[in-house]
């Protein structure tokens, strides 16, 4: 991570990586979604609505992973003052917010035919909604600090403090056993039948690569804008 803090070195890696991540991500996501829609059998309990899992689970993971990325970038910014850390945090935030919103909306759509309700103030649902609000707050704070030419320290502190919500989301299904089902997949195995499970890793990695590609594109845009501003300032001073 320290090696990537150099913008020139970062761009040398990010330029080819963007295209590869986009291409591989698209192939995996399309294969997983097509397989999940047409090849897997309906669940014995949930029926056809189980297919929503192939987008809902990766979206939930990316919403949480996005904030973990923001927290790591915030830590790098505050401790090591990495020049790209604030750029990374600002680039991750809209991507994480998008996938958190996708998670909430697809979960709600799944809940209507399965639970009989669009929304319930359940621990998991509420903590995910708080994550979306944290993202929106982070985006607004980062934009305000950038406009005032600040270093982004307040945004970084907000990014670190907001990470407290991640274990709350993760353990919410154990602490408050209400409507959302418990963990189905863990490092020790899965309770989902293999005939239904197989497209999930494809969409999981597919959407993860697309997320990474979007973050890299946003970081490249920020670096290019910073270069442009520096050149304009230099030419105005000459």
């Amino acid at each position, binding site marked *: 991570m320290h090696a990537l803090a150099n913008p020139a070195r970062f761009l040398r890696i990010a330029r080819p990586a963007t295209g590869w991540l986009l291409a591989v991500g698209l192939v995996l996501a399309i294969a997983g*979604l097509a397989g999940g829609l047409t090849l897997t059998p309906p669940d014995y309990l949930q029926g056809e609505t189980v297919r929503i899992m192939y987008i809902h689970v990766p979206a939930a993971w990316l919403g949480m992973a996005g904030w973990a990325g923001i927290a790591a970038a915030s830590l790098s910014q505050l401790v090591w003052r990495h020049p790209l850390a604030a750029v990374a945090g600002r680039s991750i935030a*809209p*991507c994480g917010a*998008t996938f958190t919103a*996708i998670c909430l909306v*697809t979960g709600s759509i799944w809940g209507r035919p399965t639970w009989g309700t669009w929304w319930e103030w359940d621990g998991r649902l509420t903590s995910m909604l708080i994550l979306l609000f944290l993202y929106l707050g982070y985006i607004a704070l980062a934009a305000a600090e950038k406009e005032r030419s600040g270093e982004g320290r307040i945004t970084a502190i907000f990014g670190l403090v907001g990470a407290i919500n991640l274990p709350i989301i993760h353990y919410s299904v154990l602490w408050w056993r209400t409507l959302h089902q418990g963990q189905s997949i863990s490092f020790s195995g899965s309770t989902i039948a293999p005939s239904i499970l197989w497209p999930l890793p494809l969409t999981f990695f597919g959407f993860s690569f697309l997320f990474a590609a*979007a973050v890299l594109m946003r970081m490249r*845009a920020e670096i290019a*804008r910073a270069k442009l501003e520096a*050149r304009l300032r230099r030419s105005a001073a000459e």
Partner: protein
Amino acid sequence: MNPWPFVIAAYAIALLATAALLLASFVSMRSAEAAAEKLRDRT
């Protein structure tokens, strides 16, 4: 209750939102890099 409208709606929203995110990121990157390139060529 027919589940397919729910499945299709969930997929459509997820795909549209992902496509919009990727497109917005791509356009932002292309325009910023093109503007930086243009200024470098001029100076």
